[in-house]
């Protein structure tokens, strides 16, 4: 779910950078307020970012096709406010090392994946006591995909509009179809997030603990 280089008009990619600067500033500011040594959580965030980077390359086998996980909801659950900078860093490496996404579209791509990650973290925290850890994780994982797909197609529509393609009912229908196609993926990602979080609760509950969360 990457917007490629050169697809977006300047106001959109510059706006993406502005939004990313604001949210990253807020995340890092919160980290500095919450931690006596703000560098303490960085190795943990870096190793988890590397683990997410590797894990998001997993293609779940559904022969003859395969599914590619986003894991942004899971990042929000585990990293809290650090999820946004971690996603930004992951996308920077993907852009520079593999040419996925791009440097001009780094801000907007970070917003597309990072804002849902922060919201997913909030959903998990807010619903954990009421729904239980497993179902709270399910909704966080599913919401991460649905919100990212909504933002992605919103940006694609804006790009189409900027290229002079009027937003006709046919295009809107095609985009609505693509959105609907993401619903099963959101279900799979929700289940995957639920299983990972339940596994972590059994094996390493500190990873989900209030005291460890930023």
């Amino acid at each position, binding site marked *: 779910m990457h917007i490629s*280089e050169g697809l977006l008009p300047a106001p959109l990619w510059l706006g993406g950078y502005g939004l990313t600067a604001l949210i990253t500033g807020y995340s890092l500011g919160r980290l500095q307020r919450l931690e006596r040594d703000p560098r303490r959580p960085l190795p943990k965030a870096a190793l988890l970012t590397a683990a997410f980077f*590797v894990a998001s390359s997993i293609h779940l086998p559904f022969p003859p096709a395969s599914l590619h996980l986003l894991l942004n909801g899971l990042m929000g659950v585990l990293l809290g406010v650090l999820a946004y900078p971690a996603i930004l860093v992951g996308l920077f490496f993907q852009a520079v090392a593999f040419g996925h996404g791009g440097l001009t579209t780094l801000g907007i791509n970070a917003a597309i994946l990072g804002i849902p990650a922060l919201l997913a973290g909030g959903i998990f925290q807010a619903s954990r006591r009421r729904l239980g850890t497993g179902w709270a994780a399910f909704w966080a994982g599913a919401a991460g995909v649905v919100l990212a797909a909504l933002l992605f197609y919103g940006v694609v529509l804006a790009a189409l509009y900027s290229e002079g393609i009027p937003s006709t009912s046919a295009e809107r229908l095609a985009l609505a179809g693509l959105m609907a196609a993401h619903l099963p993926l959101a279900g799979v990602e929700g289940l995957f997030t639920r299983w990972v979080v339940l596994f972590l609760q059994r094996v390493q509950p500190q990873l989900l603990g209030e005291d460890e969360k930023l």
Partner: protein
Amino acid sequence: MKSSKANLPCPPLASRSFSSPWLHRWRPLPKVVGLLALMAAFAQVQRLALLPLVWVLVALLWALSGLPLRRGLRRLAAPGVLLIAFVLFLPFAVGETFLWQWGSLALRWEGLERALCLGGRSLALLALAMLLGETTPLPALLAALGALGIPDLLLELAWLTQRYLQEVATQWQRMQRAARLRGWRPRGSLWRLDLALRQDLPFLAAAVGTLLVRSYERSERVYQALRLRGYGRALLLPEERAGDPWSWAATGLAVAVALGLVWVQFGGYPD
């Protein structure tokens, strides 16, 4: 943090002897400024007539980088799915001048022009990002971004992530190999979702969970080791030194070219 002069050990900067290709000798800070200015200008290009100039500039920079052409072509041959969809869709959706028609399917000049422009500038931007990444060692690149005002915490997160990426990837491959040796094979399919949901996904979730637990446990040890080596009191990234005059002259040229492109694009020069 910036008060201390001692640096923590970090990967050495790439050699910058006079025999190195010129783009490697262009100091990181001026190079980042120059290439970002060019990227911002390339992203504005909407006139097809400007595209040859853009590609001459990319070819010139590529020649100065000394990188093998094959590596660039391999990377540029795999642009994003979205870009391919746009380039294929535009010639049939935009414009009034028909070049070819078959039933309701019509190839239009205006759409073709936009598709060529969009594809050309996207690949040019991709090539510049690749040149920046391939000719600048990561610590130097991060230090240059730091000099441009990117927060230290974000740069340190990037440096540490890059430091552990290879290790985590190797660990993941080892786990996958061990699982296969123990007889695990994905059994689900689009037609057998029950097997996928009962066996494949829970197994992969447990594997990802194990990877996260191992990474977390390691991160605790890493933090202690970093503290012992002075983390928080010494610089993690090298301090960006002022560039040499030639580097800044090249940056001035790149910025001038970028401004010229923007001026031509926005009506300073007729079609």
